[in-house]
């Protein structure tokens, strides 16, 4: 039986992540970005030549691309790329046994409750501390089915035949400035391969942790699910509160081959100084299904628009998104659905809550090119404003060509009605409790679709956020 620690397994609220240790880093690429830094990373990681070349080319692309400030938040200009450390690691190989993980890192993850998670139900856990995976394990039963779940570095070394085929294919280097940055300095992240027909019963899970100040984390995740196979992947993120900005810029590529199903769940709870600029996209082949469940609670600025390219006939894409923008936060989230075959369907449901001076933005793209038949998209965005200083925006872009497709988009903005609050106060709830209950009601129909542990956790996080938001 699990011992009762001060942090229960699913608890990742902000105060719990807010600690850091002085760690001795064996490898440190220093601050700033240059060919030297990229070569340093390649040297330390003993990259094959094609990876080194890929990184150097990506660096050129990154330097040549302008910041997307003509449409995105001007806050991006606050990122000083020269002040960031691009690679930090202790220089020890990934541990298979929890006991082997260095004591100080173990303390960090124990506070976050990772080994307990694993003991309870997870099929595998990978934990990343700054640049590198420090702990990775996969349950024997799952491993015996041929499922590969390793860090991306290990993936590209030990499974090049699968890795190289799909790496950078769903999200090309030049997709945007930050995918180029990631391609130049990526380190860590997960590589997963699920063989044909294998249905991984329990979720695979990863934790990402930024410990060092002024550090940029650039993990790279590639998940390939072969024909008819199924997998659920969950990731959680935390960082301590430093005084200066920290950058997290991941690239996540999913490939669902014919009839495969991928569910990718994120609970992002970075501290409020993290710029979280992430590119996530899935490629769905015939009759495959990709579902992104995306909860953004932390960070200073998040820009993340998980997408699905519906390449195969009858494939299906879905994004369920919840964003909670508290004081000083900007959650710029959304979804992209690129229809590329007949009878493809996509569904986007986004709910956002803006509290205090928080700002929640939905940005969406739905593209149905010509000569496709029977494609369907449904988009719903609902925003809830809590305070007079809160802000919400919706910027969808929808292109439809030809007849035989149906696309609809709907959005609404509302607030908690005074009558509801009054009614609950009549029954003895405090205003804060009443508010929290209303907000939970607002996201309830979406949260119900999440795995149980996450819906419980989200409810608790919302309650925490709502405390002190009224009055």
């Amino acid at each position, binding site marked *: 039986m699990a011992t009762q620690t001060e942090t229960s397994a699913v608890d990742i609220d902000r105060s719990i992540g807010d600690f850091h240790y002085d760690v001795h880093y064996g490898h440190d690429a220093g601050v700033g970005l240059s060919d030297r830094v990229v070569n340093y990373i390649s040297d330390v990681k003993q990259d094959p030549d094609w990876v080194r070349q890929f990184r150097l080319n990506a660096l050129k692309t990154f330097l040549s691309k302008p910041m997307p400030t003509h449409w995105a938040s001007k806050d991006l200009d606050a990122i000083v790329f020269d002040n960031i450390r691009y690679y930090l690691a202790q220089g020890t190989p990934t541990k298979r046994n929890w006991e082997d993980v260095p004591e100080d890192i173990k303390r960090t993850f124990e506070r976050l409750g990772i080994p307990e998670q694993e003991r309870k139900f997870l099929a595998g856990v990978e934990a990343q501390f700054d640049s590198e995976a420090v702990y990775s394990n996969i349950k024997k039963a799952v491993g015996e089915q041929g499922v590969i779940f390793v860090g991306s570095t290990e993936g590209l070394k030990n499974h090049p035949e699968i890795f190289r085929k799909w790496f950078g294919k769903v999200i090309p280097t030049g997709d945007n400035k930050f995918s180029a940055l990631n391609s130049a300095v990526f380190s860590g992240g997960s590589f997963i391969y699920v063989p044909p027909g294998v249905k991984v019963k329990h979720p695979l899970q990863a934790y990402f942790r930024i410990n060092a100040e002024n550090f940029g984390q650039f993990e790279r995740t590639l998940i390939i699910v072969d024909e008819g196979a199924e997998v659920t992947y969950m990731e959680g993120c935390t960082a301590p509160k430093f005084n200066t900005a920290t950058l997290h810029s991941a690239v996540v590529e999913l490939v669902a081959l014919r009839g495969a199903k991928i569910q990718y769940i994120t609970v992002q709870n970075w501290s409020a100084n993290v710029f979280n600029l992430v590119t996530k996209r899935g490629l769905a082949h015939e009759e495959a299904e990709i579902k992104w469940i995306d909860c953004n609670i932390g960070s200073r600025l998040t820009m993340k628009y998980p997408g699905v390219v519906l390449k195969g006939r009858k494939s299906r894409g879905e994004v369920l998104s919840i964003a909670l923008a508290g004081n000083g936060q900007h959650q710029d989230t959304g979804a992209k659905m690129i229809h590329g075959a007949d009878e493809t369907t996509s569904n986007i449901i986004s709910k956002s809550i803006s509290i205090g001076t928080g700002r929640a933005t939905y940005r969406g793209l739905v593209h149905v090119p010509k000569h496709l038949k029977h494609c369907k998209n449904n988009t719903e965005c609902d925003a809830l*404003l809590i305070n007079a200083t809160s802000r919400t*925006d919706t910027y969808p872009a929808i292109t*439809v*060509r030809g007849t035989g497709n149906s696309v609809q988009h709907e*959005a609404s903005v509302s*607030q908690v009605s005074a009558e509801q609050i009054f009614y609950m106060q009549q029954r003895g709830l405090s205003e804060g409790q009443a508010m929290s209950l209303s907000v939970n009601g607002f996201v309830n129909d979406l949260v119900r679709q999440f795995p149980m542990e996450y819906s419980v956790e989200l409810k608790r996080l919302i309650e925490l956020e709502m405390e002190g938001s009224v009055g």
Partner: protein
Amino acid sequence: MSDNTAVLEHVKESEASEAQPTTRTILSGPAEDTPDQPTWFRQQREQGWQDFSLLPNPTRKDQPWRFSNVDVLNLASYQSGNLPSDHDRAQILEQSVALDGKSGRLIFANDHFLERDVLPESLRKSGVIFQPLERALTEHEGLVRRYFMTQPAALGSAKFAALHRAHVRAGAFVYVPRGVELDLPIEIFHWLADENVAVFPHLLLVADETSKVTVIEHFRSVEKTRHGFACGVNDLIAGHGATVKYVCTQRWNENVVALQINATTVERDASAMSLNLHLGGAYSRFESLSRLVGEGARSDLLALSVAHHKQEFDARTLQDHRSPHTTSDLLYKNALSDRSRTIFGGLIRVERHAHFTDAYQKVRNLLLSDDAEANSMPGLEILADNVKCSHGATSGQVDEEEMFYLLSRGIPEIIAKQLIVAGFLDEVIGRLSNSLIGQHLRDLIADKFRLDATRAAIAA
């Protein structure tokens, strides 16, 4: 003839402009000054030219021009126009007829003033002004100067508003004093007559407290194939409690590139409604800014586009709520055939402190061919709470059951389709609640359908 119907006044004002035979390309500098123009007007013309020269050309990467075919905005070949030939003039005067009843009428061609029906005496006595801009500049300088192009071109076309400022000469000034109501609409016609002519139609409408007025502008081409460029600006000001309706029927020929920049200010308890019917043009972009600046203000934005061939209609809107307790409601509908494209980029913006706002926005696209493309970008920016805002965008096609029903009654396919499209568009016309104008709009749509039906019959 009833007392409030317009009477034709045979004025020879047009002769003054006849003595101006030289044409210049519009990119060679601002329009030449005429002796009676006030100094401030000449100065703002210079200023317009300077701004135009300094502002960058739009590119598709600019958010306000996303999806837009900016390549058509090469203005090098366009020039200022001369007074049309006698033959064309006679045709224009004969065809400048739209509504059965009107309060007054102004007719311009190639930016030259041709003729007008002045307002009935009762309205003139109560202080209503309806004059060509050039004349109002001298006779009502104070009023014109106070309102002339004071509203920003906030939706991407600042450069073209500056070009308009540099070249504007034709247009109408309408002023309705406090409490005066016009029962019948005011009509304004702008015609393009010759090859590669550019026109800069202008409308300035000021409706004082609790007044009521309806203005309808008609944009038309004399001939079907001549190229042309139109860059219009209209500013509507609805004062406290005023009711303003503005209707535009755009029927330039299909070689014309057109930009129309509309801005409306709606003050306390006032109500403004605009309806834009877009049928013509190769590329037609219309920007509508509605600023709700006083409590109780209401704005209705309506538009219809019937697109065929390779036409592109590019609509950009901003419902700008700057005061609490304001309401806006937008309904845009597009019917797309052949290889046509439409773009809708709309934003509801609720400023800080503009609490108790109700704002709605709905765009519906009916795709009638496999090569048509509809782009929708309905947006919201909400900085206040206690608001009710929603938007919706749909793209779909003709319901097969409806089609089957009509076909089974022996109605030819193209006619059946057109019936369904007419029904789809009628909701917007209904919102205008003006049967006189509504019928005219239906007739214009039917005209365009007739062309397509003839074409289909020939093809079959």
